[in-house]
């Protein structure tokens, strides 16, 4: 059996997992529509549609992305980070850097790595649940703060979302260097995860 076939088998065996993952960008896109941010909604909803179409078998099988492409992406992430640091925040150059990097990263992430069908020990499942609980709790608390802060500026001050807390930091030169570096390093780490 081919590696792609093995992965398909694993996906078919756990359809709830695919549905749950596709639901994440759908919900995130709906929240962005609530915020009135159409571009942010598109960032989530278009890939969600592609993932749903892929799960339904409507898309062709992709070819594996070579290691060289991922190395180029790592270099691209560093370049995008420098653009974000050196050019005015919210500018056209920033949009181009993140937009182009986004398209390249998602294209490279689409093909599956060689499948490893291995039984997960109980510890692995417990660990996944613990980390997922923290991630979902942060997202839920952030969403609750955002919703409670919607009525007025004072309500927003009483219930700050993470964006409200970090926005003033990102407005300073030093803060932007720290945030962009953290974001780029996280991306570089994520690019190779799941392929080891």
């Amino acid at each position: 059996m081919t590696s792609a076939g093995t992965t398909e088998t694993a996906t078919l065996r756990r359809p709830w997992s695919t549905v749950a993952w596709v639901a994440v960008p759908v919900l995130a896109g709906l929240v962005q529509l609530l915020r009135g941010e159409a571009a942010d909604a598109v960032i989530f909803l278009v890939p969600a549609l592609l993932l749903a179409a892929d799960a339904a078998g409507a898309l062709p099988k992709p070819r594996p992305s070579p290691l060289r492409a991922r190395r180029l992406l790592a270099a691209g992430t560093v370049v995008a980070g420098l653009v974000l640091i050196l050019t005015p925040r919210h500018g056209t150059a920033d949009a181009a850097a993140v937009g182009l990097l986004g398209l390249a990263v998602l294209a490279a992430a689409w093909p599956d790595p060689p499948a490893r069908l291995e039984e997960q020990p109980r510890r692995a499942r417990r660990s996944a649940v613990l980390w997922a609980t923290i991630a979902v709790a942060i997202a839920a608390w952030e969403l609750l703060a955002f919703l409670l802060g919607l009525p007025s500026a004072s309500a927003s001050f009483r219930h700050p979302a993470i964006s409200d807390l970090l926005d003033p930091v990102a407005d300073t030169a030093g803060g932007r260097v720290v945030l962009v570096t953290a974001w780029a390093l996280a991306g570089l780490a994520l690019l190779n995860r799941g392929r080891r």
Partner: protein
Amino acid sequence: MRVLTIAVYGVLVLAAVVLTVLAHRRPGSVDGLGAVLDRGLASRPARVVVLLLWLWLGWHFFVGATVTP
């Protein structure tokens, strides 16, 4: 209320730090985030969604409207 809201963020970050320390000190009890991601991101939907969230964070903080005016 503002302090409570921020404190809950702090507690959740602290929980992540505790899990990371636990994974290093007692490797048999819990896996670190890296190991969990390595297993989880082998699936395409998980990999694409996690990278999407990362990309959106970059867009949200450095390109688009970070806070609602």
